[in-house]
């Protein structure tokens, strides 16, 4: 056994490799990005940054049906994009073990919402594992592949920011020679082709599978009953387990590793051994509601907040019902805030100055450039989800009439445009809309740490590949040459001229502002 200090994400990549995974696909998203970055560096594996999470999931399904053990990674909101595949993949099952690692971001450190993805496991009827530190992340990954193949189902390993981006000690086997299942496609039409006649029996199989799993979960090592003082028993999982151990060192704890389906028989047994049962979980009362529905008395969100992250202080104060005490030392100076901001050397700053100057309505999108909402730019009016800038601008025009189009500009980055802006762009052409779409192209997926994408011309391993051609793309949906332009980000006068001329056309226009990310340049990411 070798001791290493690993982040949860590094431990997940190592666990996947040691489990014999040979195919990895994903889309970058904080806090999940480093999983695939690390995995791609292992020998004899095939990995890719997919164009978006949906495609990553589909690549994963194909690899699994071909017999390879497969890893798919994304952040929590990415699963909204990939959910179509998730739900029906539960019907299809797997051949090689298939694990989706999905990273939640309670407190929204770098996200637009704090959805609790445990709901997805329940809704899609797939098993979910919830590690409590990097050692768990490593061990659970290896277990997840066994589970996936034994029960013929995709498995979700869910992390949160404090698991993915915290480092702790991992003891792993040395020189593992991963066992790799034999690959090769075997035709199995009633299992793989989900027409209604074949899907109906598969749904029954899912229900049987989940019932069996709930029974067998009672004996699984990853669910652990720690009996101490019986006056208080706490059901918990994930990072919350660590806060519980800090806050209530003497309490009995049922630490759940498998959190869907819940091992209700085990929870009942634990409840019968303790005087009072309390559930500690971050975000939604997912366990609490199920435990109460099973007729077991417990307390949960009555003590702890439903929003934001927990920590040991919030957990102990919440349970004691006391307010935050006065700090031991107090700062009496007024401090200016230091929010994140567009980098001082970012070539795309001038675009936001222009959008502000001309008082345009700006539908925004997800990336570094979302920071254009903050002063001194204050030039963004909406930001909802990947690709929404393009679609929402069309909706505004649809509601207001085509004359309105010259007031609205959709602003989107290159990676986001590839992810799901292109579909919106085709929709605009098809439906005769007249928006101006501005693509701020820095040739990299910058916010998540400089990953390549279909507009950067490089793969995850930095190998040369095709670069999507904006002009030909525009041509292919019928845009005349004067409705698509590429301009240098360092020439603000030209950008201003182009924006004004294109708005005056009152037709669908695509303006590409090109300027490389200065950080990526410094790191040699374009070499």
């Amino acid at each position, binding site marked *: 056994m070798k001791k290493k200090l690993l982040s949860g994400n590094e431990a997940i990549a190592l666990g996947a490799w040691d489990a014999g995974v040979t195919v990895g696909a994903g889309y970058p998203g*904080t806090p999940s990005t480093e999983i695939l970055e690390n995995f791609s560096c292992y020998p004899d594996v095939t990995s890719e940054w997919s164009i978006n999470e949906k495609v990553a999931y589909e690549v994963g399904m194909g690899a699994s049906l071909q017999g390879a053990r497969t890893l798919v990674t994304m952040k929590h909101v990415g699963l909204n994009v990939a959910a179509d595949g998730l739900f029906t993949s539960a019907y299809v099952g797997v051949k090689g073990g298939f694990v989706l690692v999905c990273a939640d971001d309670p407190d929204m450190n770098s996200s637009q919402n704090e959805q609790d993805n445990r709901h997805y496991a329940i809704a899609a009827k797939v098993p979910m594992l919830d590690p409590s530190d990097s050692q768990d992340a490593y061990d659970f990954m290896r277990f997840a592949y066994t589970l996936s193949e034994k029960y013929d189902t995709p498995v979700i390993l869910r992390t949160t920011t404090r698991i993915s*981006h915290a*480092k702790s000690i991992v003891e792993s086997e040395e020189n593992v020679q991963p066992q790799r299942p034999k690959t090769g496609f075997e035709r199995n039409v009633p299992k793989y082709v989900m027409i209604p006649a074949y899907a109906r029996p598969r749904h029954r199989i899912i229900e049987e599978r989940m019932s069996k799993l709930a029974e067998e979960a009672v004996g699984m090592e990853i669910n652990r009953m720690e009996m101490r003082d019986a006056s208080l028993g706490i059901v918990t999982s994930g990072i919350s387990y*660590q806060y519980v151990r800090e806050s209530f060192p003497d309490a009995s704890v049922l630490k759940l590793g498998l959190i869907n389906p819940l091992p209700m028989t085990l929870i009942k047994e634990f409840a019968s051994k303790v005087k009072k049962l309390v559930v500690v979980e971050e975000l939604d009362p997912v366990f609490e509601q199920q435990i109460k529905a099973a007729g077991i008395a417990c307390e949960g969100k009555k003590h702890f907040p439903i929003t934001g992250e927990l920590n040991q202080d919030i957990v102990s104060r919440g349970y004691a019902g006391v307010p935050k005490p006065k700090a*031991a*030392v107090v700062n009496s100076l007024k401090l*200016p*805030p*230091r929010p994140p901001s567009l980098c*001082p050397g970012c070539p795309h700053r001038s675009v936001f100055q222009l959008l502000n100057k001309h008082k345009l309505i700006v539908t925004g999108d997800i990336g570094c450039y979302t920071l254009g909402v903050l002063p001194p730019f204050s030039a963004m009016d909406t930001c909802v989800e990947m690709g929404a800038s393009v679609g929402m601008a069309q909706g505004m025009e649809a509601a207001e009439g085509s004359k309105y189009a010259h007031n609205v500009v959709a602003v989107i980055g290159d990676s986001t445009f590839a992810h799901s802006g292109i579909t919106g762009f085709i929709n605009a052409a098809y439906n005769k809309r007249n928006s101006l779409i501005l693509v701020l192209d820095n040739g990299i997926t910058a916010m998540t740490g400089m990953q390549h994408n279909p507009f950067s011309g490089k793969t995850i391993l930095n190998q040369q590949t095709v670069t999507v051609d904006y002009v030909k793309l525009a041509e292919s949906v019928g845009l005349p040459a004067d409705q698509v332009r590429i301009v240098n980000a360092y020439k603000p006068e030209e950008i201003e001229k182009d924006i004004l001329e294109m708005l005056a056309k009152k037709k669908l226009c695509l303006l590409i502002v090109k300027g490389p990310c200065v950080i990526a340049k410094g790191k040699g990411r374009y070499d």
Partner: protein
Amino acid sequence: MVGRNPLKEGTMDKIHGILMVGVGGQGVVLASDILSLAAMNAGFDVKKSEIHGMSQRGGSIFSFIRFGKKVYSPLISEGTADMLLSMEEMETLRWMDYLNPETRLIVSKMHILPANVTEYPVGVEKELAANFKHLRFVDTDQLIKQLGNPKVLNVAFLGMMADALPMGMDHWASAIKDSVPQKTYEKNMEAFELGRTKAKEA
């Protein structure tokens, strides 16, 4: 630094809480990686936590490190940090909730203005002096001149912390070796030693 050093006492049973703060791009995360590795090398259980992603674009950066016999939470409880390294002066005040009058502080005098702010707050040094006994300000401009390279500044700061912590020099050296590019190892070790020397000056 003066006075008794609780960090050296009862070392294995105690959970040590170290907070490192600064501004994106200053090397806070690498420094906290090295300290955590040194603690692991010395036989401690270690956890550390920080935030990546959007907050790194010029925003405040922090890293929590905890080590001891057995560590559960990767987060430091309010009022319990044993030591704070601040690589930017005013950032120190943002983290007061985690400190107490006994916390040992090493504070860079470097001033970095947040975006859209034109005046640096006045009285930060005074505010800190009024609250803490074990407080050391570092003239970072002078230190960079001595180092000849601003890139190893974070490791020089680690050197300033090292003798107040229970890890041996071999634990630090191998942690640095495993964390920095091989060709910069010597330069980083020189910076670390310079930091140690600085810390011993009155």
